[in-house]
């Protein structure tokens, strides 16, 4: 059974239909890559998953429960979905360690020392424990993304969602982060990753879902989408990306 099943998801902002009936499912332990042109609604789709954005219609079944229903405990839902953002979004006034411990203490109610132990465990998995006393402005972009990942993982989420995790990074750091996500997958973490970065997409998964004009236009292997797909627009999207990367 799928961990997440998105059925006919629609989101209309004012009069603009951003999601026009998205269908997508994600099996536990899998990695799902979603690609598509800028502004096609990728971030909107992800934000519907944890109700940062309220979908207009459709259902999202998460662990057997429709989480679009009004009575759902949104804060509990958010705790089980780890989010990693393009711009890292580390809390600038807190050290690396405190970035990870904050939610453990405020939400999980852990003591200072419990939270510290858990945080150091997650940070050392990502080779960031030695930087635990630094502030976000004192570490590199790739390191920031590691901290953001550690912060998400510390909450033991059922799925980790990445919104363009490499697009603020240079190519070398992008590769590094791609490897981290891949390792996560090997550790059986369920992953959903939205990206422009074809290199990242290919590296994470053989298959990709293509989101355009508010629907999943195709879901297939990179090879098929690039070479054999009947829609020339889709072919050119993947060819163009392939030639620039």
């Amino acid at each position, binding site marked *: 059974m799928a961990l997440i099943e998105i059925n006919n998801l629609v989101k209309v902002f004012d009069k603009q239909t951003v999601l026009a009936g998205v269908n997508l499912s994600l099996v536990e332990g899998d990695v799902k890559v979603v690609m598509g042109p800028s502004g096609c609604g990728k971030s909107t789709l992800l934000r519907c998953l944890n109700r940062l954005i309220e979908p207009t219609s459709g259902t999202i079944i998460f662990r057997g429960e429709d989480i679009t229903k009004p009575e759902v405990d949104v804060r509990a839902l958010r705790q089980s979905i780890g989010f990693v*953002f393009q711009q890292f*979004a580390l*809390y600038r006034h807190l050290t690396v360690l405190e970035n990870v411990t904050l939610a453990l203490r405020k939400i999980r109610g852990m003591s200072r020392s419990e939270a510290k132990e858990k945080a150091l465990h997650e940070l050392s998995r990502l080779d960031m424990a030695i930087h635990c006393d630094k502030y976000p402005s004192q570490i590199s972009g790739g390191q920031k993304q590691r901290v953001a990942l550690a912060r998400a993982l510390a909450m033991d989420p059922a799925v980790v969602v990445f919104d363009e995790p490499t697009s603020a990074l240079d190519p070398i750091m992008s590769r590094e982060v791609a490897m981290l996500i891949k390792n996560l997958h090997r550790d059986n973490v369920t992953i959903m990753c939205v990206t422009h970065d074809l290199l990242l997409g290919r590296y994470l998964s053989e298959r990709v879902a293509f989101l355009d004009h508010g629907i999943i236009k195709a879901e297939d292997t990179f090879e098929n989408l690039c070479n054999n797909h009947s829609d020339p627009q889709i072919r050119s999207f993947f060819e163009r990306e392939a030639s620039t990367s």
Partner: protein
Amino acid sequence: MSFLDIVLQLIQGVNYTVLVTLTCSATGLVVGLIVVGLRRLSFPGLRFLLDSFTYIFRAIPVLVLLFMVYFGLPMSGLKVPPLLAMALSLGLIAGAYIAEVFRGALDLVDASEIIAAQSMGMSRLQILISIEFPQMIRFAFPGMVNEFTTVLKYSPFAYTVGIPEITKQAMNLASTTMRGIEIYFAVGILYFVIYRIFLAGLQLLERHYRVPGLEPK
């Protein structure tokens, strides 16, 4: 009577000046936090009230409000002690100004950090207290120091409600000794010293809580 005697006499008012300044600054700080915090949690309707408060209280002269509180309220049966009257006038006006300083500083908090915290499952109040306020206060520091300085400089009004602070001591001395120039020169020096000590204390605090990458511009 030597100049030193004058200074020693005036120093008896220093405690009161410091007390009034600290009380009114603390009131201003708390009021500023409450106003900006409630505004941020934006209960509809409340926002209008809060904005009206800052709009009106920034426009009232301190002395007028002080008289309204200290001489006006007793007419409706409410006797207000002098220090409380200072807090309710100078303190509230400082609060209105500090709320404006905070409002500007709050805009500097990165929206993406707030979204990240929401995505972790934190409540609006938790985000306000753990993320927005700590950053806001750091950004607002120069503006806050300005307001505290203004409070110090308005503290002489306390003599009008019978608090024997420095200026009051000076007036007493001047009326008995007729050495006004020396006396007010000494008063000036005392305020200068208090101001420098306050500032040094605040700068120490600022340095202690300073975070690389979040320095106020």
